[in-house]
C-alpha cells in the first residue's frame, strides 16, 4: 500500500486498489464462473463432477471452424467499413471549420442511442419487398440487405460513431501544431498529415477500432436477423442456440464464449504492441491554439459527405422506427388514414408497465455510468501512469468483457451469485442488472481514458508534485480535468448503452422488473411491433437529449471545454 512500492511519481496505491477491487467484483467473478462452468459441466447443480467432459464434444463440432471464421470475417468487415466512413469525417471535423458542426455531431451521436436490433429491424422494414422504400419509390433492396454486405453496412452504421468521435477528439488534441512544424520543414500538407497528425492520433484510432471489432464479434441482434437468412452463422448465434435450445448446453456455451474472449484478447494485444513502439504524448502543458482552418473549395463535397452519412446512419433507422410506431396497422403501410398516435398514448398511459421500464433503465444507466467511470479512470491511471507490477493484469481484466456476449455475462452472474451458501446476494434484485451492465460496459471508459492518459506528459503530474501538491491533489486538479472530456463522453456512452442493453437483461432481470429493452422485446414477441417501436423512439429521444443537456450544463459551468 505504500507509495514507494509502486515506484511512480504519485501515490497510485489507492487508485490501484480501488480499480482492482472493482474489477474483481465486476469482471473477475462472473468470468471465473464461466471458466469453471466450461470445465465442470454440472456446476449449476453445485457439483464439480466429470471435469472437461464437454470440452471434446464442443470443440469437435464440425460447424465450429465455419462459425469462428465467419465471426472474424464479419468483425474485420465492420472495422474496415467503420474506418472508411468515420476517419475522413473525424479528421475534417477536427482540423477544419465545418458549417453546422454541432448539428453533425448530434446527428452522428444518435446511432449510439439506437439499439442495434431496432436499427436492423428498421432497415429490414425499409428495404424488404413491399417495405417503406418500395412503398415510396417502387423498388426494394432485399438482396443487398440479407448478405454479408448488408450486415456489414447495418453494423458499421451503428458503430462508426465510436471511431468518428475518437478520431475527431484525438486529432483535435494533437492539433495542427505538430503538422505545422512539419510544414515549416518542407513537408507537403498531405505528407504532414500522413506522417505526423495521423500517427500521433494512433492511440484513439486504434482503441476505437478495437472497440468496434469487439462490438462486432459480440453483437447478436444483427447477425441473428440478417445472417441466418444468408446462411451466415457466427459464434454468438451459436452460443445463443446452445443456451436457448432445450436441453440447455451451458458448458458448450461457456467454451464458445472463452473462444470469443480469446479473439478479443488477440486484437487487444495487437493494439498494445502497435502503441508500445513509440510515445504519443502531445499534451505537454504548452497552450495550443485551437484555430481551425476554413474548408475552402472542399466545402460542398464535405458537407454532402456529412449529410449522406447522417441520413443513412440516423435518418433511415429513425424514420423507419417512427413510421412503424405511427402506423395503426403494419399491413396498412404508409397511408394517411393509417396514421395513429395510439402506440405513443399506450406508452404514456403506462400500458404493460412502460413508464416503469423507462424509469428502471434510466436509473440503471446512471448508476452504471458512475460506477464504470470511477473504476475506469482508476484502472486507466494505474495502467498508464504507474509502474506497478501486475498492471497488465488489470488491463487484461478490463478487456475481457469486451468479447463476453451479454448472455454469457448473465449466466456467469447467476452461477456466481446464486450459490446457496452465500449469506447475502445481489441476485434477484436490481443490483444484479447493475453488475451485468457494469461488466459489459466497463471497457468503454477504460479504453477512452487510457487513450487520454497516454497523451498526457508525465512532467505535468511531476510539476504539480514539485510545487507541493499531494498525489491526490495532482490527480484531482491536473490529470482528472485533462481526461475529463474523454471520461465524460465515455460515461454518456455507457449511459446510453446500459439503458438499452437487451440480451443480458432478458436472462438476468429480477422477477417482476422490466427495462426498456425487455419491454420492446416482449412487444415484438407478441406481435405488437408498433408499440415496441413507439417505446424505442421515446427511449432514443431521451437518451439523446439527456446527455446533450448535461454536456451543455457542464460546458456552462466550465468543467468541459468546447
Amino acid at each position, binding site marked *: 500500500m505504500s507509495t514507494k512500492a509502486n515506484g511512480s511519481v504519485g501515490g497510485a496505491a489507492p487508485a490501484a486498489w480501488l480499480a482492482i477491487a472493482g474489477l474483481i467484483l465486476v469482471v473477475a467473478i462472473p468470468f471465473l464462473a464461466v471458466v469453471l462452468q466450461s470445465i465442470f459441466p454440472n456446476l449449476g447443480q*453445485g457439483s464439480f463432477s466429470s471435469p472437461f467432459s464437454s470440452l471434446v464434444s464442443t470443440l469437435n463440432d464440425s460447424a465450429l471452424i465455419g462459425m469462428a471464421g465467419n465471426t472474424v470475417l464479419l468483425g474485420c468487415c465492420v472495422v474496415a467499413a467503420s474506418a472508411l466512413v468515420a476517419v475522413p469525417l473525424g479528421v475534417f471535423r477536427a482540423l477544419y471549420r465545418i458549417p453546422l458542426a454541432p448539428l453533425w455531431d448530434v446527428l452522428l451521436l444518435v446511432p449510439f442511442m439506437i439499439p442495434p436490433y431496432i436499427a436492423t429491424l428498421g432497415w429490414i422494414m425499409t428495404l*424488404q*419487398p413491399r417495405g417503406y422504400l418500395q412503398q415510396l419509390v417502387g423498388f426494394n433492396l432485399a438482396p443487398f440487405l440479407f448478405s454479408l454486405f448488408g450486415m456489414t453496412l447495418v453494423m458499421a452504421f451503428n458503430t462508426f460513431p465510436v471511431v468518428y468521435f475518437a478520431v475527431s477528439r484525438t486529432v483535435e488534441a494533437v492539433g495542427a501544431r505538430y503538422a505545422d512544424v512539419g510544414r515549416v520543414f518542407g513537408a507537403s500538407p498531405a505528407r504532414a498529415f500522413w506522417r505526423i497528425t495521423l500517427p500521433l492520433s494512433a492511440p484513439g484510432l486504434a482503441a476505437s477500432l478495437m472497440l468496434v471489432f469487439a462490438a462486432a464479434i459480440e453483437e447478436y441482434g444483427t447477425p441473428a436477423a440478417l445472417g441466418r437468412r444468408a446462411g451466415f452463422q457466427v459464434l454468438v448465434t451459436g452460443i445463443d442456440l446452445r*443456451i436457448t435450445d432445450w436441453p440447455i448446453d*451451458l458448458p458448450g456455451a461457456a467454451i464458445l464464449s472463452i473462444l470469443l474472449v480469446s479473439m478479443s484478447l488477440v486484437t487487444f494485444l495487437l493494439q498494445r504492441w502497435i502503441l508500445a513502439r513509440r510515445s504519443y504524448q502531445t499534451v505537454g502543458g504548452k497552450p495550443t491554439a485551437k484555430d481551425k482552418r476554413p474548408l475552402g473549395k472542399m466545402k460542398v463535397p464535405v458537407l454532402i459527405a456529412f449529410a449522406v452519412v447522417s441520413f443513412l446512419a440516423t435518418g433511415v433507422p429513425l424514420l423507419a422506427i417512427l413510421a412503424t410506431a405511427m402506423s395503426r396497422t*403494419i399491413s396498412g403501410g404508409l397511408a394517411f388514414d393509417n396514421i395513429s398516435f395510439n402506440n405513443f398514448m399506450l406508452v404514456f398511459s403506462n400500458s404493460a408497465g412502460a413508464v416503469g421500464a423507462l424509469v428502471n433503465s434510466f436509473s440503471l444507466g*446512471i448508476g452504471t455510468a458512475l460506477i464504470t467511470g470511477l473504476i475506469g479512470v482508476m484502472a486507466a491511471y494505474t495502467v498508464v501512469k504507474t509502474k506497478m507490477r501486475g498492471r497488465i493484469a488489470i488491463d487484461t481484466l478490463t478487456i475481457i468483457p469486451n468479447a463476453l456476449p451479454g448472455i454469457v455475462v448473465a449466466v456467469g452472474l447467476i452461477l456466481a451469485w446464486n450459490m446457496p451458501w452465500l449469506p447475502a446476494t445481489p441476485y434477484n*434484485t436490481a443490483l444484479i442488472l*447493475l453488475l451485468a451492465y457494469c461488466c459489459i460496459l466497463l471497457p468503454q471508459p477504460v479504453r477512452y481514458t487510457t487513450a487520454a492518459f497516454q497523451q498526457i506528459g508525465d512532467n505535468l503530474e511531476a510539476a504539480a508534485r514539485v510545487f507541493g501538491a499531494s498525489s491526490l491533489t495532482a490527480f484531482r486538479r491536473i490529470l482528472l480535468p485533462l481526461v475529463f472530456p474523454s471520461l465524460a463522453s465515455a460515461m454518456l456512452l455507457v449511459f446510453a448503452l446500459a439503458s438499452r442493453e437487451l440480451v443480458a437483461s432478458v436472462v438476468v432481470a429480477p422477477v*417482476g422488473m422490466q427495462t426498456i429493452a425487455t419491454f420492446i422485446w416482449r412487444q415484438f414477441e407478441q406481435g405488437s411491433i408498433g408499440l415496441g417501436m413507439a417505446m424505442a423512439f421515446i427511449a432514443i429521444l431521451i437518451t439523446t437529449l439527456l446527455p446533450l443537456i448535461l454536456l451543455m450544463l457542464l460546458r456552462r459551468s466550465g468543467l468541459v471545454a468546447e
Partner: protein
Amino acid sequence: MLKSLKSITFGVFAAALMAGAAHADVTVYTAGPQSLIDKLSAGFTKQTGIKVSVFQATTGKVMARIEAEAANPVVDVLVSASWDTATDFAKRGWLVKYSSPNAAKVPDFLKTDSAVAQGISALGIAWNTKSGTPKPTEWADLTKKEYKDLVNIPDPAQSGSSFELTAALAGQDNFKLFNDLKANGAIIAGANADALNPVLQGAKAAVFGAVDYITLASKAKGESIDVIFPASGTVIAPRPAMILNWSKNQDDAKKFIDYMLSDEGQKMVADEMLMPARTDIPANRPLISDLKLLKYDTATVYGKRKETLAEITKIYGGK
C-alpha cells in the same frame, strides 16, 4: 469530486437494494404472453392477497435461467410453451404431484399428475389477405408457383411447436413437402415473431406454421391477416403449468394453479386468443374440436429431434 462520486454510487446501491427487497410470495416463470400473466397475477392477488413475482421470456430463456439457478432455485410455478418441458421435468423428478379441483373439465390428454395445461395454441397458415395471392387451404398449397419466394417458416430449432409440426409432416412423406417448399423459395426465418413480421408488411405472403394466437390478436387489431387451419391436420401446443418440488410456497403455488383454471382465469386465457384448457369455457376462435390433429408419437418424434433438425438444416442450407 471523488467523495461526491462515492456517495452517489452508494446512494444508487442502497436504492437498488431497497427496490429488490420487496419480497413476493409466489414466483412464476412463464413463457406465455406478458399481458396474460399480468392479468392473472393481478386477479390472483386481488382474490387471495398473495403477491406474485413474474419472470417472462421465451421458453428457451426461461429454461436457461432455471438451469443456471439449479444450485439455488427460486421458481415456484413454471408455465412453459412446450409440453415437452413437463415430460422432461417429471422424468427428472422436479415436479410436485397436484390435481387441481378446477381441472375436472380439462380433458385427460391435457393433464398429468404433475402438470396441467393453462391454455392451448395451434399452428396454422398465417396469410396476408392483401398479398394478391389466392387464399391457401392446405400446407401443400404453399409449394405452388403463386407463392414463389413468399413463404416464411418459423425455425423449428427455436420453437417447440414448430418442431412438432415439422417432424409430423416430414414423417408423412420423408421431407418431400419441405424439399418442395425449398424449391419454391421458402426460407426459415427465425422465431415465431420474426417469421410473422414480414408477412404483416407484405414482404411475404404466408407463414407456414404460425402460432395462431399471436396472429389472431394481430387480426383483432385490424391487420389484414388471417389464420387457416389445413383440413389435413395440424399440431397443437398445450402450455403446461407445473409446481416445482423445491418450492417453499407449495400451498400458495397450488392456489395459483387453481386460480389459473378458475372461470375467471380461463376467461383471461380465452381473451388472449388462446384456447382455454377447460372445455366448458367459451372462446371467440376455433377450438380443438374444430381442428383436425396430425397423428404422431411425441416420444418417437423427440427421440429423433437431432436428426430431424439436421435434415432441415441440410435442406435449407445453413453454412
